[in-house]
């Protein structure tokens, strides 16, 4: 299985990606799609700006995908992560995992997201409703803890 990894500024269509992944496949029994959206944080934000490290972003996600493939019997894996200015209600990230049975698909999608948040080189900055550029979003200890539980 070769994971499909795309880093792009354009929006994506999760349903269309699922259809592509499952097309012509009689062996896939389950797909799990996780879509992350931009929140407005109670009306405070006009957008999130996502900066990334081109080259490393793809390489790091590929390493995480490789680890997921080693842990679960996946039949397909698609990861799309957007960069640039993203408005509230727009999508930021898609993880789509396919397997013969649901448990592997659920777990692999969750594993991918936990690792993406703490290892993939992306950084978010807030753009505020009043037109000013706000602070860089701080990393959460709870995200590190979520990643940590997969090891050991």
């Amino acid at each position, binding site marked *: 299985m070769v994971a499909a990894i795309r880093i792009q500024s354009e929006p994506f269509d999760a349903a269309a990606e699922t259809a592509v992944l499952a097309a012509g496949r009689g062996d896939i029994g389950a797909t799990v799609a996780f879509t992350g959206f931009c929140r407005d944080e109670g009306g405070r934000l006009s957008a999130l700006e996502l900066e990334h490290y081109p080259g*490393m972003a793809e390489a790091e996600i590929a390493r995480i995908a490789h680890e997921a493939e080693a842990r679960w019997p996946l039949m397909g894996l698609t990861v799309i992560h957007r960069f640039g200015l993203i408005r509230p209600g727009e999508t930021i990230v898609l993880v789509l995992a396919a397997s013969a049975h649901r448990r592997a698909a659920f777990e692999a999608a969750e594993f991918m997201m936990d690792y993406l948040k703490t290892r*993939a080189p992306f950084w978010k900055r807030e753009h505020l409703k009043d037109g000013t550029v706000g602070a860089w979003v701080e990393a959460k200890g709870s995200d590190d803890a979520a990643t940590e539980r997969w090891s050991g």
Partner: protein
Amino acid sequence: MKLVYFAWVRERIGKTEETVEPPEGIATVADLVRWLKGKGEEYEYAFENEAVVRAAIDHVHVKPEAPLAGAREIAFFPPMTGG
């Protein structure tokens, strides 16, 4: 060697990338950070809390004790907040 910076590390240093030639004896990522901090207050500011800034060598995450030998591109950035 080429250095690249991201997010607030980039903003504090005021550059996206630069090429540097550290003197002999700068063998690890931690050595490089110490040497950079001596180059000016912008570096001092970016690395004021060394434990927070992350590093990668040639697109792979590394720890401060990682050797620089053979490195082409070294990146410094804050903890990641994607996803």
